[in-house]
């Protein structure tokens, strides 16, 4: 039967470089025996002393790391910030991009909206996990090989331009409001000036179903104008707050649900427009357009909602 000391020395040597193993073993064993003798000389039982000495020396893997001068961390301070920034940068857009592309590809394949959204979310999650794993692995290897990263040193010029307490900049708000105004104006404009010429005679074909002017198109315009109001309120507050997040989600849904409902029932596009194009008038193709539109709408709403939640949490933190 091997003694506890034998087992302790063996466990320590397991991760010590082979070249130095024997010498470390001899020295460590001697030191342990010295320590046991020291306690035994004080009148202690040898077996109890052995246990105490080994407990004092602690986890053999940790002792071995100290002998080998090896760091017990996955990514240390030298690389941590570079790792974290790269990870944040990649995670901020790559999974979303891959998810949208995967979802849209799936959407063109059939008219299964739920399946396409699921495929998009699944692809985004897989991409995020892969990015996190590989980036971390590369940095863990750099940490262990002590590779020099020739990153530019930090300078004061890198300080953010904006006042840090303002989350929503004037430029952000202006761009959002600009797009909303253009979009709102486009709804009536497309009825007269769609640039899709009628097949016979002159004039333009409306893109959206003119029958919707009785209620849905004015309703969507009201929602868009309300969203402009929300953007202005958000800019005045300077950051996302819980009421803003809720209002934003309600407005997004108020826009998206009618669009999805109308598209699903083939009521969104004007029948004249559909008849104008041979490709579009095939029921299968029209379904594909409907599915892609619906999936894109759902993804945009989810994305927007997730973004507002993340920014809300960031201000709360």
């Amino acid at each position, binding site marked *: 039967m091997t003694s506890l000391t034998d087992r302790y020395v063996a466990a320590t040597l397991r991760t010590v470089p082979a070249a130095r193993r024997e010498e470390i073993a001899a020295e460590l064993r001697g030191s342990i025996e010295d*320590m046991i003798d020291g306690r035994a000389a004080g009148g202690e039982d040898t077996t109890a002393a052995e246990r105490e000495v080994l407990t004092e020396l602690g986890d053999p893997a940790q002792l071995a790391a100290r002998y080998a001068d090896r760091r017990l961390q996955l990514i240390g301070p030298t690389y941590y910030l570079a790792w974290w920034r790269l990870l944040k940068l990649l995670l901020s857009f790559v999974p979303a991009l891959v998810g949208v592309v995967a979802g849209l590809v799936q959407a063109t394949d059939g008219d299964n909206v739920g399946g396409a959204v699921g495929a998009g979310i699944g692809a985004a999650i897989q991409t995020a996990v892969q990015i996190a794993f590989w980036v971390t692995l590369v940095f863990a290897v750099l940490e262990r090989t002590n590779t020099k990263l020739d990153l530019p040193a930090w300078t004061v010029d890198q300080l953010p331009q904006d006042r840090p307490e303002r989350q929503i900049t004037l430029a952000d708000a202006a761009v959002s409001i600009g797009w909303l105004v253009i979009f709102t104006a486009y709804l009536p404009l497309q009825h007269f000036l769609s640039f899709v010429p009628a097949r016979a005679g002159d004039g333009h074909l409306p893109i959206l179903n003119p029958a919707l002017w009785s209620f849905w198109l004015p309703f969507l315009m009201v929602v868009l104008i309300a969203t402009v109001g929300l953007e202005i309120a958000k800019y005045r507050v300077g950051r996302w707050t819980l009421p803003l997040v809720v209002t934003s989600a309600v407005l997004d849904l108020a826009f998206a649900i009618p669009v999805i409902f109308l598209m699903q029932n083939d009521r969104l596009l004007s029948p004249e427009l559909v008849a104008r194009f041979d490709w579009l008038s095939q029921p299968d193709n029209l379904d594909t357009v409907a599915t892609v539109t619906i999936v894109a709408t759902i993804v945009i709403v989810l994305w927007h909602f997730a973004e507002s939640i993340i920014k809300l949490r960031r201000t709360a933190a």
Partner: protein
Amino acid sequence: MASDEILRIHLQELRRGTVVVASLVALRHPDYGYALLQRLAAHGFPVDANTLYPLLRRLEEQGLLTSEWNTEESRPRKFYRTSAEGESTLTLLIADLAAVQTSMTALIQGVER
């Protein structure tokens, strides 16, 4: 008064570098790991065994200590001794330690309580 945990961390930080200096001084007389541990403890430098043993090896690899196996006694022991290079490094370390002490004294006396 800060909590025991905070105090413990600061004391540990304060003591960390002094173990190297104390070991280099003590090993002007050659000694093996456990005996050095006892001597340092007796002189008010309590060091954990799992810190000191790897430290001795590191100092040896840095050339600040030399070592020799002694097989005359009951069990073979590795004796460390401060090398010439270790001695010149030690001189600089002690000078710096004294400078820290001087600066600290001046600061303590200069600051009105």
